[in-house]
Structure formats: structure tokens, C-alpha cells
């Protein structure tokens, strides 16, 4: 005989102001099987919890219904309370009187009646609840880091230094990401490569880190602590175990005019190449799309002939490897809009209108001009340069709604670098607002204005056109009664919007993580869980979540690494046992369930006779993979699958309880 306790919470005014909680508790007393019923202002408070514990003991309750807020909010709280009073926690259920009743209805007698019916449903369910015990799963203490930019590097090093294994996957031939392309970094103006390259080398040499460059994630299965990742290792066409990185091949390759990704298109590279001199690994790959050998059926092959170590291997094929990992950190970074995006700035037809990233390459000692600011069209040193902020950002009409966050700072830095290199030059920045919120950021911008005399003009540029070799930049100064400002510039730098990587959507689908309207990966909670995704065991760091600068990326990377380390500090994980199970006696072995299971959790099990011969095959649920979604239950034709805690019987009892003597009153 069931002895159910009902605990009705007012949730302060949240429920109490709309539902007559005392009346609900009173009505619940009469429900069959209810041994005790009471209402209280805050059931989740300490006195509220004590009240439940004492009632369980005093009235010898066999089940508990807490009628309060959403189970998402407090189910763990109340199940813990039940457990502390000696009751199996899964014999405690919640009726949601807040979201399902008080928040969506006006104060009325019928609202109170609905609340009572919600309680009745749960009472009927709890009567059929059985004690359940949490599932324990082992943790594979290896992390997969996708993306080898500064965020990925920091994450990998932090995890590796806490003693765990890391597998890093980078799609391009070298790690380093956008940071390796930068000249000097704000607000300290220290050289980007100088601070980054030691970290890159550390990654390559760390005993706990396995690095796969020129590789991409193919697929990811499994769940927190127990993922299986398939990684595609793209054919490098060079055997890196033999190659000594002498560079002979790149120097002799007859194809030389491929736009250089590392120099943001400002230079060219050969078909067999190392992206930049400090690359890690410092060994080349063949870009097969541009290589004559691959384009013209084996013609050329010069690199193979001259390679002193015989490392060139045209026959290499893409390879797939599968690794077991316990956690994944996504650090795939961001992209920027190109200059061809802007109609009023010439659709990209003017060579001397460049992006911020291209300016970084011009200003970088390792860049195509060896750090001299020279304009792309004729190599002249620009005497008058214009920087335009919010190029595509804060532009709902054509670009993106949001502020890309990093542009104000890097444009101030660009203007400053330019003034340091071209003393006689004039630099102007067109801006709408200067967003310099960060440690010593405001001071940095003021330095550009006050010490380096950068001309800041408040107003958006309407149009740029070319005239007699000059770029005419038309704007106004809105602080001067909208006085027209027309600058005859030699070069224009657009602070183009930071946008999500084009592949982010397909990666999100492989990982089963969500993304926002701009295709940036979504964090689990904007404030309290900023480095986790909604999929347990998958974290985020860096600009793949939103454009951010180096300090922010690095902080987030360390945050993600600490989440991984915390996870790896346990030997096994505890999971809710609310998963599916199969009745072997009735399963007909149609395996429809197997075809719909999104978690690949259903296997085939052979039922054998005593002599070992197979009688038939039935479905079997892998408790490690099953997430209890119930899709298989809905599809099973012989009704042989059920879910712990949500069995057919329990759900049926809930629904049928609504057909009672009071039903007629609602009609």
C-alpha cells in the first residue's frame, strides 16, 4: 500500500499569488494513496527541506510529490532531501505548479483546481515508481582539442601540464592560427610571433600532446567521458618522418603564384609549402589543388626528383584514425569579411583598400614587405592612410548586427604602428564609438591620439572611390556639426567584421552542439557556464564562440582546460539511470529502434539455445550511450522497450488520473 507525501510550495508570490496552495494541499489529502499533505512558503529553503525529511520519517512515506517549480530547477535538490531521509531518490517527483500553472494563468478557482490535478497526476505516477540506482561510467582521460590557434594551444598546454593526454587537430599545415599572422599586439605592442612561437614549439614537444596538423575531425560519437573521434589526416604528400625540412622543394617548385593564405592574400606561395618560417611542424605539404603533378596527371614531379631525403610521396592517401577521448574542446577560431563585401567601398576592386589582417601582414617583420608599410598596388609608402572601423560590424542592413569587439583596439594599434614607421605620414581613423574596455586599453587609444597624433574623426564613411591614384574617402565629422571630411588617401584599412568560420555549421552538426544566429558556437549559459556547450563533455574557447582578443581567448582557454581537468580528476562518472531497456521475451528483432536511435546506443544480442545455436536476435541497449530520449520506445511495434522512470504504465497512470469524479466539472 502506497503512502505518498505531497508538499505544496508557494514559491513566495510566484505560485502563492495565483494558486490557493493551502487548498491544493487540502484536496491532495483526499487523493487515494496520499498519507500526508502540507503547504509551505519556500519548500526549497532549509526549514522546507527539514519539513520534508521529517514527514518522510514520521509518516513512513513510500513516495514524495513536491508541487513547486520546474524539475529543471530543483529536482536534484528534492531528490537529495529524499535520499537523506532514507528514501530512494527516484521515488521523489515534482509537479510543476509554477511554469505549467501559476505563471500562465490568472488567479481563479479553476487555476487552483488545475494545480490540484497536476499534483494528482504525479501522485499516480509516483505510486508506480521503483527504486533506481545511478549508472557509473569510466572516464577516458584524454582530451581532443580541435583547432591550433592561441586558444587551442593554451587549452592543450594547460591540460597536458595537469598530467592528462591531449590530441590536437589542426586543419592547416601549421598550428599558430590568426595570432601567428599578427604584427605587434595591443596594448603592450609586444611582437605577436615572439610570444607565440615558444608556445607552439612547446605543444610540438610536450610528451602529453599528440599533434595532427593538416587534419580535420570527421565524426564524433559517444558521450562525456567516452567519446570516439574519427580524424581525417589529409594526405600531405610528404613523409614527415623522413623530411628534414630543408626547404629545397619549395624553392624549386615551378608553381609560385598561389595567393598566400598566411599573408592574407598579399603574397604568393608555391604548391609545396611551409606556411611561414616559424611553422610547427616546419615541414612542407603539397597543395594538391594547385600542384601540376596532381592537376596534369603526373607531369612535373620536380620536388620528388630533387628531395635529398626522398620524402615526397605522391601516392599518399587521406587516412582515417579513430581515437578514444573523454572530453572535447572546440577552439576553431573565426574568419573576417573580405573587402569585396562593401559596395560603397568599391566591391573589392581597389587594391589599396585592405583588411585589418592584411595590414597586420604589412606591418609584420615576417610579412611580404618585411614590415615596411607599402601599399599593394605600386609598393609606395602611403603618406596618408585612413582606417575605417565598423566595416560590416554594427550594420544590420548589409553586415552583422553585433560589435566585433576587437577592431577599435587593433585599428588604434595599426594607426600607431603606421606613425612609428612613417613619421611624416598622416593617419586618420573614422569611428562611431571607441570601445576600449579592457585593462589599459583606454590609455592605449589615448596614446594613439595624444602622443602619435592620430586623427580620429567621428562618423561613418559613406563612399570611397579612386581618382588619379588616390582613394577619395568621403565622410563627415559628426562632432563638428556634420562638417564634410574628404580625405585623399593613399591606402585605406577596413576594420572588417569578425565572423564565424564558414565550416562552423557542419562542425556543430558533427559535434551535436548548438550555435547562434551568426553561426558562432553557443555556450551553455552566457554568464555562469561560458566555456561549456549544452553537450556534456564538449567545451569552447576563443573566437569560435564570439570575436575576442588574445587575453580573452587565453583566459577562456584556461577556463575550458580547468573544466576538462576537473572532469578527468574523477575515475568514473555518475549518470541518471533514466534510460531505455528491452524486454527480450517480447522483442521480435525488427531493429526499427536501431535505425532511429540518435546516439547509436542499440546493439544486437543473440539469444542462444543450450547447444550454442542462435535462436533469434533481439535489441540490446548500451547503457553508456543511451540518453533516455524515448524515440525507440515510440517506434517499437511490439511495445518491448520501456524507459526507467517513464514506463508506459507510469505515463498511462498519469494521464488516466485525469478521468476522475471531478473531470465533469471542467467540461
Amino acid at each position, binding site marked *: 500500500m502506497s503512502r505518498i507525501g505531497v508538499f505544496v510550495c508557494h514559491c513566495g508570490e510566484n505560485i502563492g499569488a495565483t494558486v490557493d496552495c493551502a487548498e491544493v494541499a487540502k484536496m491532495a489529502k483526499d487523493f487515494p494513496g496520499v498519507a500526508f499533505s502540507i503547504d509551505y512558503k519556500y519548500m526549497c529553503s532549509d526549514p522546507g527541506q527539514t519539513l520534508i525529511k521529517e514527514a518522510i520519517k514520521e509518516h513512513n512515506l513510500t513516495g514524495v510529490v513536491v508541487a513547486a517549480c520546474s524539475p529543471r530547477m530543483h529536482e536534484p535538490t528534492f531528490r537529495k532531501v529524499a535520499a537523506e531521509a532514507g528514501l530512494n531518490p527516484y521515488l521523489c517527483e515534482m509537479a510543476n505548479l509554477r511554469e505549467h500553472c501559476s505563471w500562465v494563468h490568472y488567479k481563479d478557482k479553476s487555476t487552483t483546481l488545475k494545480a490540484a490535478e497536476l499534483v494528482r497526476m504525479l501522485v499516480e505516477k509516483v505510486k508506480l515508481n521503483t527504486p533506481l540506482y545511478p549508472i557509473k561510467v569510466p572516464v577516458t582521460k584524454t582530451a581532443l582539442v580541435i583547432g591550433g590557434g592561441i586558444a587551442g594551444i593554451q587549452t592543450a598546454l594547460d591540460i597536458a601540464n595537469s598530467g592528462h593526454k591531449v590530441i590536437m587537430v589542426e586543419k592547416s599545415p601549421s598550428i599558430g592560427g590568426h595570432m601567428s599572422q599578427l604584427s605587434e599586439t595591443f596594448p603592450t605592442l609586444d611582437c605577436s610571433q615572439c610570444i607565440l612561437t615558444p608556445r607552439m614549439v612547446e605543444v610540438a614537444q610536450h610528451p602529453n600532446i599528440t599533434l595532427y596538423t593538416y587534419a580535420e575531425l570527421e565524426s564524433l560519437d559517444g558521450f562525456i567521458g567516452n567519446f570516439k573521434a574519427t580524424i581525417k589526416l589529409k594526405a600531405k604528400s610528404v613523409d614527415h618522418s623522413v623530411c628534414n625540412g630543408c626547404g629545397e622543394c619549395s624553392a624549386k617548385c615551378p608553381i609560385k603564384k598561389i595567393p598566400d593564405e598566411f599573408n592574407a592574400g598579399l603574397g604568393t606561395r608555391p604548391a609545396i609549402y611551409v606556411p611561414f618560417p616559424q611553422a610547427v611542424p616546419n615541414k612542407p605539404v603539397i597543395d594538391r589543388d594547385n600542384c601540376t603533378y596532381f592537376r596534369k596527371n603526373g607531369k612535373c614531379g620536380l620536388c620528388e626528383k630533387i628531395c635529398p631525403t626522398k620524402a615526397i610521396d605522391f601516392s599518399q592517401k587521406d587516412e582515417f584514425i579513430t581515437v578514444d577521448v573523454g572530453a572535447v574542446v572546440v577552439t576553431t577560431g573565426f574568419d573576417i569579411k573580405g573587402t569585396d563585401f562593401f559596395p560603397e567601398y568599391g566591391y573589392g576592386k581597389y587594391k589599396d583598400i585592405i583588411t585589418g589582417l592584411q595590414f597586420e601582414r604589412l606591418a609584420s617583420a615576417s610579412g611580404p614587405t618585411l614590415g615596411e608599410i607599402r601599399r599593394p598596388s605600386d609598393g609606395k609608402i602611403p603618406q596618408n592612410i585612413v582606417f575605417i572601423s565598423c566595416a560590416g560590424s554594427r550594420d*544590420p542592413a548589409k553586415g552583422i548586427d553585433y560589435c566585433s569587439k576587437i577592431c577599435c583596439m587593433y585599428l588604434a594599434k595599426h594607426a600607431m604602428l603606421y606613425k612609428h614607421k612613417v613619421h611624416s605620414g598622416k593617419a586618420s581613423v573614422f569611428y*562611431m564609438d571607441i570601445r576600449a574596455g579592457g585593462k589599459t586599453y583606454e590609455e592605449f587609444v589615448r596614446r594613439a591620439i595624444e602622443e602619435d597624433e592620430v586623427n580620429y574623426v567621428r562618423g561613418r564613411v*559613406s563612399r570611397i572611390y579612386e581618382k588619379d591614384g588616390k582613394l577619395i574617402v568621403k*565622410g563627415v565629422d559628426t562632432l563638428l556639426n*556634420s562638417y564634410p571630411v574628404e580625405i585623399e588617401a593613399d591606402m585605406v584599412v577596413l576594420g572588417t567584421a569578425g565572423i564565424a568560420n564558414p565550416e562552423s555549421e557542419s562542425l556543430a552538426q558533427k559535434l551535436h552542439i548548438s550555435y547562434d544566429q551568426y553561426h558562432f558556437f553557443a555556450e551553455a549559459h552566457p554568464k555562469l557556464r561560458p566555456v561549456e556547450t549544452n553537450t556534456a563533455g564538449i567545451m569552447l574557447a576563443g573566437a569560435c564562440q564570439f570575436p575576442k582578443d588574445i587575453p580573452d581567448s587565453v583566459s577562456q582557454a584556461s577556463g575550458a582546460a580547468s573544466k576538462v581537468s576537473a572532469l578527468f580528476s574523477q575515475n568514473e562518472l555518475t549518470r541518471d539511470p533514466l534510460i531505455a531497456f528491452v524486454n527480450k521475451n517480447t522483442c521480435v528483432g525488427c531493429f526499427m529502434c536501431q535505425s532511429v536511435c540518435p546516439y547509436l546506443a542499440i546493439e544486437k544480442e543473440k539469444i542462444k539455445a543450450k547447444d550454442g545455436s542462435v535462436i533469434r536476435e533481439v535489441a540490446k541497449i548500451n547503457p553508456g550511450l543511451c540518453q533516455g530520449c524515448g524515440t525507440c520506445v515510440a517506434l517499437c511495434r511490439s511495445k518491448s522497450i520501456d524507459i526507467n522512470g517513464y514506463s508506459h504504465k507510469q505515463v498511462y497512470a498519469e494521464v488516466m488520473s485525469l478521468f476522475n469524479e471531478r473531470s465533469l466539472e471542467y467540461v
Partner: protein
Amino acid sequence: MHTELNAETLNLNLKHKIKKDTGEDIMLCYQCGKCTAGCPLNDEMDISPNQLLRMLQTEIPDLEEKVLKSSTIWLCLSCETCFSRCPKEVDLPKIMDYLRSESMRQNSVNKKASDIVAFHRSFLSTVKSVGRLYEIGLIAGYKARTFHLLQDVNVAPTMLLNGKLKIKPPLIKNRSEIAKIFDRIKELEEKEK
């Protein structure tokens, strides 16, 4: 908090009237100045386009009055450059159309704009009586309204010689229909008042 749209505030604030009448939301403007930077007429205007929007945003009656009395609204050529570049898609030409008719309604037309208004009026009265544009009639009417009697006397003879001016008005058959369209619109306007 949003200002409530009731009859009282509607009477007070031009920006709410504009929202109601044209659907354009003045508050979208964040004062980047791109409209002004691209405006071919900015040099001639007494209030620059972005400042005009800012003035309307404030809801200050003095500033609203200045807007209605400005030359800006009459100088706007509806070239649509501002609208096609506006990052917030504020349809400034549409707002200018509204401000012009509101300025006429309130008898606030800028003195410097009287020539422009005179030209528009002569144009429409020609259309009302003829159905189509009749340049000689238009210019005659415009001159009578503005006393710019000598303007364009230098181009007129060449126009005639080039066959570009018609002496006879291009009357359409159902002229009365056109006049009735003008009358019905006037009636409607008076009803709305």
C-alpha cells in the same frame, strides 16, 4: 521603456506621427553620419540629415519646429543615396516626404524653399489642368509665382529650335478625370483633419 502610443503623445511628438504614418522608426538611427557624408545636398542644407534625425529623436518641441522650418526637407532630392547606404535601413527620403507635407500643413515652409514649393505647385497645377507636363505652362506658372522672369530665357529659344518645346499643351482626353483625382484627395485630406 517605450513611450506609450496614445492620442496625447501622438499629438506631441513628430517621431511618433512619422512612425504611425510611414512606419519609419526614427529611434533606429545611431548617428553614424553616413547619410550626411553621402548626401549631395549637405552643403546647401541648414540642418544636416543625421542631425535632423537626432533632433526628432529628442522630442523637444523647439527642435521639431526647427526641422519643419528647415530648408533641408525641401532640398532633399530623393536620390536615395542615404537610404541605400544606411546601416540601420532608415528610409530618410520617405521621412523627408512626410516632413514636407507636414511643413506645408503647418504653414512652416522655409522662406528659402519658396521657389522649390512654387515649382512643385506650378507643376501639379499644370498636371491637374492638362493631365501631362506642359513645359511652357509650367515655367510661366513658376515665373508668375516667383517673379524669376528672366531665368532660362537663354535656353528656351534653343529648346524651341531643337524641337524640344511644344507650343501647344499636350491635352489628354479625360482631363476631367485627373482633376477629379486631385479633388478627391483634397476631400480625403479635409476629412482626415
